[in-house]
């Protein structure tokens, strides 16, 4: 990759300024939420634009963390996210690679088999009965298995595979490699950016998903973070939030529901937003060319 030193043009200045401005606009709600989560009712109810709290008060966090189950829920969400992501990514690769082969007989049939599942679903009742009949109620598998095959991801990844230079594979076949070896030795290494992207999507999906947890999980020790968070976000007031969370919260602090909601959001997104830099690591330019030469 030839990086030439060039003069900084007007375009560069505009571009950098643009992105800086955009970052500020985008950072604003996030920062505002952080500030709100560290405020109390007095300073929060001034409602205006607060860029810095009058004083940093951790009461909202104390309130949320006083919910006895929250650490367990955290752990469950992490387990679910890790296992679920590995599963989704594996299945996505396994389905996407064959579908990316234009000469695969009956390819269209298989593509349509996957596509139909993307558009039509039987809905909550038969899905619930199925999970029940499989004995998966109150099991982590109920959260992981039904979503393990994601057709959207498969299509995206298949499309990416299709853009890969055919020459690479053909030379491998000549060398006597089978399809599985080609997939693991050639395709996966040069598809790191898209695999990383799908992994990110899958992780965020599992992190945020609450509905399955709500209907399939009744055992408190298997509860996930988002069902707790959701109770808080849909609650009408603190008393209700408190009782929905199992009455663990102290109702004596001077908080607004908005303070607690803000803290809940910050707590619930913490770990997942930190993932991105790791994903970004795989966005390396010239990855294709590198493998060609290697």
């Amino acid at each position: 990759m030839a990086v030439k030193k060039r003069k900084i043009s007007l375009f560069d200045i505009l571009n950098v300024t643009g992105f800086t401005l955009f970052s500020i606009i985008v950072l604003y709600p996030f920062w505002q939420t952080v500030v709100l989560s560290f405020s109390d009712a007095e300073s929060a109810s001034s409602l205006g634009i607060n860029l810095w709290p009058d004083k940093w008060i951790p009461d909202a966090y104390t309130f949320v963390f006083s919910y006895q189950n929250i650490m367990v829920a955290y752990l469950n969400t992490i387990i679910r996210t890790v296992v679920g992501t590995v599963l989704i990514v594996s299945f996505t690769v396994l389905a996407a690679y064959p579908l990316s082969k234009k000469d695969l007989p009956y390819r269209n049939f298989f593509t349509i088999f996957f596509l139909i599942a993307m558009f039509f679903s039987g809905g909550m009742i038969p899905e619930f009965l199925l999970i029940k009949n499989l004995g998966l109620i109150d099991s982590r598998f109920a959260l992981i298995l039904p979503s393990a095959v994601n057709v959207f991801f498969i299509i995206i990844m298949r499309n990416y595979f299709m853009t890969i230079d055919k020459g690479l594979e053909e030379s491998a076949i000549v060398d006597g490699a089978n399809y599985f070896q080609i997939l693991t030795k050639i395709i996966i290494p040069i598809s790191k950016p898209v695999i990383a992207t799908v992994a990110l999507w899958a992780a965020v999906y599992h992190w945020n998903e609450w509905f399955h947890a709500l209907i399939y999980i009744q055992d408190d020790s298997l509860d996930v973070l988002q069902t707790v968070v959701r109770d808080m976000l849909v609650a009408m007031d603190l008393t209700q939030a408190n009782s929905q969370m199992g009455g663990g919260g102290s109702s004596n602090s001077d908080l607004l529901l908005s303070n607690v909601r803000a803290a809940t959001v910050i707590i619930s997104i913490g770990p997942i937003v930190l993932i991105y830099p790791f994903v970004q690591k795989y966005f390396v330019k010239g990855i294709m060319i590198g493998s060609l030469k290697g």
Partner: protein
Amino acid sequence: MQTVIERAVESKPKRKENINWVRMKKMKMLYFMMAIPMVMLFIFHYIPMYGILIAFKNFSPGLGIWDSPWNNFEHFKRLFSDFLFIRALQNTIVISLLKLIIVFPAPIIFAILLNEIKSEKFKKVSQSISYLPHFMSWVILSAMVIEVFSPQRGIINYVITFFGGEAINFMSDKGSFIPILILTDMWKELGWGAIIYLATITSIDPQLYEAAEIDGAGRFRKMIHVTLPSIMPMVIIMFILRLGAVLNAGFDQILNLYNPLVYEVADIIDTYVYRSGLEQFQFDYATAVGLFKNVIGIALILTANAIIRRKSEHGIW
């Protein structure tokens, strides 16, 4: 396995008439790969699919899905005799199309421009920041949006009144509500949406840029003639898939931002169904609404795919 392929390759010229069968044998490992995801999909998606029947029945939980009586498309007739539903359908289409036209291209432009940033550090930081709002819930964001557009304390009205104008209640104004929807949607999802394109851009062969440079192409021409065409297949796929969701115009966002004064333009199918309490015990009716949305979605996908296939090879199938 290796020998299998070799044998298959050898036998290929001998049985031209059965070429598919030969190829299938040759590629059987690919079918094995697909088998596990397909079985999973069959169990968790195809088996419960009989639930769609509910949309055509008077569902009675005591009878179950199979034995509930058919109702002669009563749910669909009811849907289309309700003029508020028709209005919601129109609003859904308008909002969704506007989002498709305005919001959909934004991450693409974002990704291409970000790619032009020279400082790797700046690039990484602004990208990491840009995707933060995706994680914020509309319950929280709506309060901030309403604050920014507030007639009393909002920054925009502050500017307007400072220059002697009259404060506008933007959130309750039919004219400004839809632009606010579009704008805030873009604001929230831009960075997140750009990730897939950034991933795709990294796989562009740098030789293409070098070749373009030799031809004397400037930066803009490289953006237009190298970067854009290289990510075009991904753009097309994203576009087609997005079309399929055209009747989902952003339930959470609208529910948290709208009010009765803007129902006329902002009430979409999902918010109307939600407000009507139709999802409560009325599975049959709610399923009919969902089915209607999906059928429209798949029809659009089929059409778009057919059109795109005629012009290029980048369709879904």
